[in-house]
Each structure stands twice: as structure tokens, then as C-alpha cells.
């Protein structure tokens, strides 16, 4: 059968299909252009059923975080220097990167002593390679995790502003062990976020700043990993994870875990792929046993895969590292 379709009907078909398709999908509840802002729940372990701080996305506002985790907007605004904001509840996690962009990068590699005086002492740390810390969405994850007492492993290079550290401390959210582990991640930034007023008006960090990727372990030896869970016997309470099969999580988050993987340099890093783990001589079946599901393509970056399936990278990493012969 021969049927012509001319320009005008074609135009109507095109516009109609898009408009009609979108309206229909809205009616069916399929149309979604943003994350629903409901953090996934931890499925196993001590914290099962609680919202997982690891699922905080850049698009989450402080209001969304209050709704999901019960951390008041006022506390978040205070911690990250948004008290003067007209509507601090609307501040998004991704906004932190912009706010703290220059500050974190400008930090020298020195370490703040546990007894935090506003003017932190400068004690150059030896051999660890300088690594700029970044205050962004992951800093917010870490803050929320510490505030609500849920274990969380921050990404490499994550820092939190000194103001956030103080808010945690003032609210009694930091045990001495947690405090010790968090200190190397504390970044002193500009006036608006550092209530101590020790920063000059220009907002630039002073050399007496407070970051270092080196975390002293229980034995007093510096660690190369900036992750608090690397602090071995100190038991920081910021480790562990949420959704792995029982027994595979490293650390309970109570400050007494003492994971065996913590005294050596992490074998699995942010860019490590499953292929590299297989190259150790580990079998696919072993990996899948840890993951609790089929392993993706070998070239997949483990960290990205964890993010996409909702698993806590730190937990998967620790469990996989234990497989190394």
C-alpha cells in the first residue's frame, strides 16, 4: 500500500510523539529527570535499615540531608560555613567544591596536633607525597556519617573543613579515636568557615594548616593512605560499609576493629580494575563470592562499579584485598 507523508503531518507526528510520549510517561510515573533524593538504606549489619551516607549525591541539598539523615540544616550550614546563606537548606552538596576550591588545594602538607588550638602547630610530616585534599560531596558524606555514627570510608584525597570538625566535636560526635583519625583530613580554610578567626581576611590558608595524608597508626608508623580506616589499631569508627555479605566488612565502626589490611598500602585504589585483582591469581568465583553478585566486565573500575550498584567501596576493597594470596 502506498501512503505519502508530507512535511506538515510529519512535523505534527514528531512534535506529537515527543509531547504525547512525555505526557504518557508522566502519567505512568516513568518520567523522572532527577534523583528522587531518597538515600538507599543499609541492608546488612548493625546499621541495617538506616540511610547510607555513602549514597549522598552532589545534587542533594542540605534539606534533603536533613530529611534522610536527620542532621539539621543549621548544623550543616555551621559546619560548612553557610550560616549567612539566605536559604541554607537549598545549598547543594556539589556547591561545596566551588566554595572550597582554592582553599583545600592551597593547603601545605602539615599535620594538626590532636589538641586542637585555633593556631595549629606546623609539623612537617616526612616522607608521604604531598596530596591536595578536596572538600566536596565526599566531605559531606564523611561529616554526615560521623554525625549519625554510621561507618564510612572517605575517598582518597577527601578533606573536611575545620569548622565541620569543630561542629562534630562540640556536639560530642567524636570519640578520641575518631578525632585522632579525622585530624589528618581537617583543612583550615577561609574566615567564613573557620570560626576561630585565625585566617587572614584574604581567606587564604596559613602555613599552619592542618592536613596531611599521613595517618599515624597505632604503632606510630605513618600510613600512606589518607583513609581513616587505614589507621589500624586506632579503630576510628569511620570504616566499614553497608551492603556486603556478612563477615566481609572491615571494621565495625565502633573504634575497635583493627582491620588487618590497615597497616599496609592499599592494594586496591580508586582506579583499580577487576582485571588487576584477577591478575593476583584470585579467581572470578572468589571475587563474586565477595561481591555477592556476578562480576562485571574485567576492565571495570571497582570503585565506579561499587558506586553504581550501591556498595560501599571501602568495604569491597578491604574484602577483596583479603583475597590476595
Amino acid at each position: 500500500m502506498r501512503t505519502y507523508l508530507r512535511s506538515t503531518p510529519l512535523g505534527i507526528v514528531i512534535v506529537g510523539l515527543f509531547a504525547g510520549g512525555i505526557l504518557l510517561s508522566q502519567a505512568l510515573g516513568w518520567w523522572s529527570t532527577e534523583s528522587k533524593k531518597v538515600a538507599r538504606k543499609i541492608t546488612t549489619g548493625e546499621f541495617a535499615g538506616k540511610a547510607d551516607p555513602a549514597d549522598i549525591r552532589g545534587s542533594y541539598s542540605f534539606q534533603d540531608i536533613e530529611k534522610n539523615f536527620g542532621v539539621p540544616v543549621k548544623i550543616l550550614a555551621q559546619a560548612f560555613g553557610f550560616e549567612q546563606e539566605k536559604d541554607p537548606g537549598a545549598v547543594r552538596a556539589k556547591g561545596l567544591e566551588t566554595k572550597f576550591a582554592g582553599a583545600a588545594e592551597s593547603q601545605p602538607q602539615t599535620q594538626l596536633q590532636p589538641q586542637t588550638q585555633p593556631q595549629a602547630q606546623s609539623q612537617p610530616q616526612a616522607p608521604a607525597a604531598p596530596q591536595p585534599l578536596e572538600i566536596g560531596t565526599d566531605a559531606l558524606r564523611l561529616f554526615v556519617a560521623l554525625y549519625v555514627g554510621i561507618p564510612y570510608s572517605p575517598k582518597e584525597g577527601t578533606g573536611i573543613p575545620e569548622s565541620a570538625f569543630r561542629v562534630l566535636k562540640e556536639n560530642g560526635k567524636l570519640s578520641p579515636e575518631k578525632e585522632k583519625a579525622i585530624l589528618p583530613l581537617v583543612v583550615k580554610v577561609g574566615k567564613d568557615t573557620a570560626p576561630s578567626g585565625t585566617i587572614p581576611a584574604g581567606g587564604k590558608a596559613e602555613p599552619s594548616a592542618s592536613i596531611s595524608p599521613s595517618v599515624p597508626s597505632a604503632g606510630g608508623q605513618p600510613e600512606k593512605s589518607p583513609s581513616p580506616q587505614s589507621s589500624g589499631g586506632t579503630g576510628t569508627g569511620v570504616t566499614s560499609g553497608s551492603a556486603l555479605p556478612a563477615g566481609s566488612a572491615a571494621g565495625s565502626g565502633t573504634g575497635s576493629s583493627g582491620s588487618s589490611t590497615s597497616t599496609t598500602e592499599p592494594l586496591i585504589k580508586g582506579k583499580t580494575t577487576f582485571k588487576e585483582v584477577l591478575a593476583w591469581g584470585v579467581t572470578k568465583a572468589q571475587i563474586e563470592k565477595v561481591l555477592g553478585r556476578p562480576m562485571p566486565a574485567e576492565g571495570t573500575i571497582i570503585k565506579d562499579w561499587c558506586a553504581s550498584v550501591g556498595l560501599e567501596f571501602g568495604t569491597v576493597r578491604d574484602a577483596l584485598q583479603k583475597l590476595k594470596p
Partner: protein
Amino acid sequence: MAKKSITARLRLGIQIAFLILVALISLNHSLSSYGIQIPLVGSASLHAICPFGGVVSVYQFLTIGSLVQKVHEASLVLMGIAFFLVILVGPAFCGWVCPLGTVEELIGRIGRRIFKKKYNTFIPPAIDTYLRYLRYGVLVWVVYVTATSMKLVFADYDPYYALFNFWTGEVPLTAMGILTLTLIGSLFIERPFCKYACPYGALLGLFNKVRIFTIRRNPSTCINCKACDRACPMNIQVSIAGPVRDHQCITCMQCTSEAACPVQETVELMTGAFQVKPIENVSAGNIPAGKEAGK
């Protein structure tokens, strides 16, 4: 001539409407960070309203059940609509909807004024033919890296993303560079990104082989004036085709009897085939020897 003008204006009107809509949505998305909203316009991220986001998410969706970061369900819906449309009428999405294609065309109008008949003929056909397959390489690469990394890797290279986000400061230099090349290239070549690099255009182009409504030329009424060839932005030789099955056709309708073709019912978007008139009913010399319908 008035009718032909209406065809061109109708398409341009729809193209510009989609261009403005996408630009406003993207701008609104940026403004929403400051608590400002343009009324009656959504504020979705560009990734959420790009059907190609749905395509690159398919592997992850089927294997893991989740979408690639930053891609949302709306992308899958738009992908479904675009697939329905492409099966029905071919890649009309490219010719009538895609805002990047529209911008390329608008810049091309300047190029056409500058270079006149030389415009869109700078690349020798012998090279051009092979360059047209580059976009399939891009398609394979994008799908592969997205499947393995589970990230929107193409966003770092995507001129479409750059076009509607250049003011945000979030666009990587690579994407800005490719956008700049595309815009400059459009002064010399019609739709350069679509022809040589667009992975979504590559995918949709494959449906030209199976689409229901096809551009067809009626050899029995064709006067071989080649007006259709000159009108085609994708340099397809409509004048030697029966049904146009070229993978680059974007169903823009510029070659049809409504637009460029001077003979009624000779180049049409249609189902079925033309009735081939007996050769004696057509003026001598109007039909090139050796042409057959449907070839």
C-alpha cells in the same frame, strides 16, 4: 514556491522550538542552584533529557539494573520515543529535533552565503565516503567505555553538552574544543559533527535500512535535474537512488517534491513504491537510460 517555503519554514520552526526549549531547560537548571526559576520551564539536567543517555545506559540497565550516573528514567523514555520515530520515518530526530544539528545548520547558512556553490563540497567524495563511517567507531567506543566505566565518559567530549553548559564552568576543555571545531567546521561543511562523529546519529542512521516511511524517487517522472542532490545537507545522491537507504539520511525533506524537487510526486516520503509509468508516456530524454525503480 510558496508551498516549498512553508516546508522549510515548518522544519526550521520546529527545530528552533526544540533548540529554545533545551536551552531554557539547561539555563533553568543552572539558575536553580541560585534559587531562580524560569516559569513553565523544567530544570532538568541536560543528561536527563538526552535520549543518547538512555542508549549508553542500556548495557548497565540490563546487567545491573541501574542507570549510568547522571542519567535518569526520562532518558530511557526519550530513547524509546526516538526509536519509535526512527522506525517509522527514519532519523527525523536528527533533522527536526536535535538542537546541535540545528545550530550547525544555522551556522551553515552563513557558510552558504560566503562560499555559495562551493559550500559543503570541500571534502573530496573519495575521502568523504570513508570519513562517514568514523561515527560508528565513535559509537562503539562510547558504548564500550560507558559499559566498562559506568560513567558518562562521552560528556567530556560531547559538543552538545558543551553547547548548553559552556556558561557553567563545568565543561571540560575537550568538549569545548570539539564544539568549537564543530561550529567552525559548519561554516564549510553542512552538519560536520552529524556526518563524521555523532554516535547517536550513527545508531539512528542504521534504521534507514529498515524504516517504514522512506524517501523515494520516482525514476519514471524524474527529470534528472539533480536539485535533490544539491538540496541534501548530507550530500546524498538522491538522483540515483530509488528508495533512499543511505545511512546518513536525516529525513529533513529538503529533497522532496514539497521542497527542492520541481516535479510533483517524484521525491516523496512514503510507504510502498511508485507506480512506474510506461516509458512511452514520459517525454523523451527525461529519464536517464539504465535507471530502474527501486535501485
